[in-house]
């Protein structure tokens, strides 16, 4: 015999409102729990997303192409030729948002007062902007105007270290393919700021053609940086590029280029689940208590239903439906509350008072909550699935009553 779903559901709904104060308190607890799950997850996601984006911006790109030996020895000797037709074909595909080729070598920068080891980037400025460089971050002067721009753009922190300033000259020194010193004087045409001070201190931008000429590497480049459509899933793009590369060139996604950054994402996913389960465990005590009380108060009725011919499974079903209604209503309110509090914070939460700590974690001082549908679904699934499992205990207890004993209860 099947369970009379409509009859049981109607009973469950009405029973829920017999003690409406208790039901409302439990609803509020579930709603606040769901809100905490979703809201805190959005904050954490926002922070990790920012750290990952900052990291990808520093790389830059979701995937990069290098000579096979470049990662071990990022010198001018391990360079690439310009992209061929097959690669250009892929780079023009829809899955690619932007790409650029760059020269990237270690170098020494010197002012008249000090010198520093830096990473010299010979770039095509338009390509850099497409890959994420914000021209608004140039706080003094200007960004490069072309691959043949003879100027140099340095970070704000580096400018302070070198005790130089806009318009002054600095000398860049590196090695050419014959391991001879290659150097050149550059005029500081721009100063950029970055969310991370380490970037301001360690990176300098010069025109790609100017750097290629200085290093005597012709039209060769160090890397091709490619920005895909979704940073969370860069591997398909990497696979497509890998298919057309010669054997001595490699393509790596940011997940491989920066394993620390990638591991943060994996840790985050695990942390979100643990966080949600912990919140639920706190909620579950209230839920079990509510349902237990509801069962104890209705022992006679449960006995009556059993005496009238209702099977134990139908009693279990009725208690579970009560729990499900309670959970669903609580989740509805909790979800609306979470969305309602996250949306007004879309423009970011200013955390400048703890900016140093945020920077140590590789995150910026403005936190943008990130609400993912998957997290919303996960929070709801955790509450529903664990809620039903938790409700099995009171439901099972209710189904075990012997009719004659239950009917005899006062």
């Amino acid at each position, binding site marked *: *015999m099947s369970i*009379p779903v409509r009859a049981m559901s109607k*009973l469950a709904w009405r029973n829920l409102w017999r003690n409406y104060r208790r039901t409302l308190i439990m609803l509020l607890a579930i709603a606040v729990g769901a809100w905490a799950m979703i809201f805190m997850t959005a904050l954490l996601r926002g922070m990790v997303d920012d750290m990952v984006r900052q990291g990808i911006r520093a790389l830059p790109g979701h995937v990069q192409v290098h000579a096979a030996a470049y990662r071990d020895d990022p010198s001018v000797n391990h360079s690439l030729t310009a992209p061929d037709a097959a690669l250009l074909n892929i780079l023009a595909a829809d899955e690619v948002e932007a790409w650029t080729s760059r020269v990237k070598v270690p170098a020494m920068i010197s002012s008249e007062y000090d010198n520093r080891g830096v990473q010299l980037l010979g770039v095509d400025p338009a390509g850099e902007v497409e890959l994420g460089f914000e021209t608004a971050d140039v706080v003094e002067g200007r960004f490069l105007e072309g691959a043949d721009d003879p100027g140099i753009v340095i970070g704000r922190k580096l400018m302070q270290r070198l005790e130089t300033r806009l318009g002054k000259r600095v000398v860049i020194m590196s090695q050419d393919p014959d391991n001879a010193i290659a150097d050149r004087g550059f005029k500081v045409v721009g100063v950029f700021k970055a969310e991370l001070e380490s970037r301001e201190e360690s990176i300098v931008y010069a025109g790609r053609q100017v750097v290629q000429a200085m290093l005597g590497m012709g039209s060769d480049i160090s890397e091709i940086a490619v920005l895909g459509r979704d940073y969370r899933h860069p591997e398909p793009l990497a696979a497509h590029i890998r298919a057309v590369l010669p054997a001595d060139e490699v393509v790596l996604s940011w997940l491989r280029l920066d394993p620390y950054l990638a591991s943060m994402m994996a840790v985050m996913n695990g942390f979100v689940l643990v966080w949600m389960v912990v919140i639920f465990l706190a909620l579950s005590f209230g839920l079990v208590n509510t349902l237990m009380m509801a069962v104890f108060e209705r022992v006679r*009725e449960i006995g009556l239903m059993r*005496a*009238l011919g209702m099977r134990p499974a139908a009693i279990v079903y009725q208690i579970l439906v009560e729990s499900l209604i309670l959970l669903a209503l609580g989740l509805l309110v909790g979800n609306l509350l979470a969305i309602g509090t996250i949306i007004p914070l879309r423009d970011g939460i200013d955390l400048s008072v703890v900016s140093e700590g945020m920077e140590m974690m590789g995150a910026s001082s403005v936190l943008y909550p990130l609400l993912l549908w998957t997290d919303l679904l996960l929070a709801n699934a955790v509450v529903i699935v664990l809620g039903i499992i938790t409700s099995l205990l009171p439901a099972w207890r209710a189904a075990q009553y012997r*009719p004659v004993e239950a009917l005899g209860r006062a």
Partner: protein
Amino acid sequence: MAAISCKDLCKYYQQGDSVIKGLDHVNLEIEQGSFICLSGPSGSGKTTLLNAIGGLDALDSGEISIDGERVDQLGKAALSDLRLHHIGFVFQAYNLIPVLSAKENVEFVMQIQGVGTAERERRSMKILKEVGLEGMEHRRPAQLSGGQQQRVAVARAIVSQPKLVLADEPTANLDSKSMEKLMGHFRELNRVHGVTFLIATHDQRVMEWADRRISMEDGRVIRDVLQNNG
């Protein structure tokens, strides 16, 4: 074949150091279509016997068969099905579901049985009219008097025309007129549809309606007599 066969039923309760005999070697044969009253003082075993026959309570020993099927050997689910499809109960206390209206209480068993909405509606309205609760269908138990609640419980027990009705003091809260009406209805169901009635009662007026009177004391059947109610 006997509708109900009870062989050597024993049910004992421990109360402190003493043993209370709920049922003490009770033997009964009840034919289909019987109209029987169980009488006896409080604690004589009437309710225990009804509960045992209805599969609500387990026996210490003995055998109960209904239409040849051993009730005492059935599992929980099979007992539920037996009660649902073959037995109507009227309990000593009215035992209505407080969140359901009078009509919904009457419909409840039919809902579990899977009777369609229109048929449920027709039958429940008819039976409520017959027990004098027309116009009170949508009242919840708390809005009904004790007698009215008892009539709802009776209506629920007989609305799906079970083969057997086990009624424990069904007229306890009814006035004479209502009692007469209810017993008349029971009698009609018994005569027209062959429903077997086993009614535990203290009420002499109810006993007069019976074809057979069984008297109990200390868990034993002390008298079992037929009476002409032709």
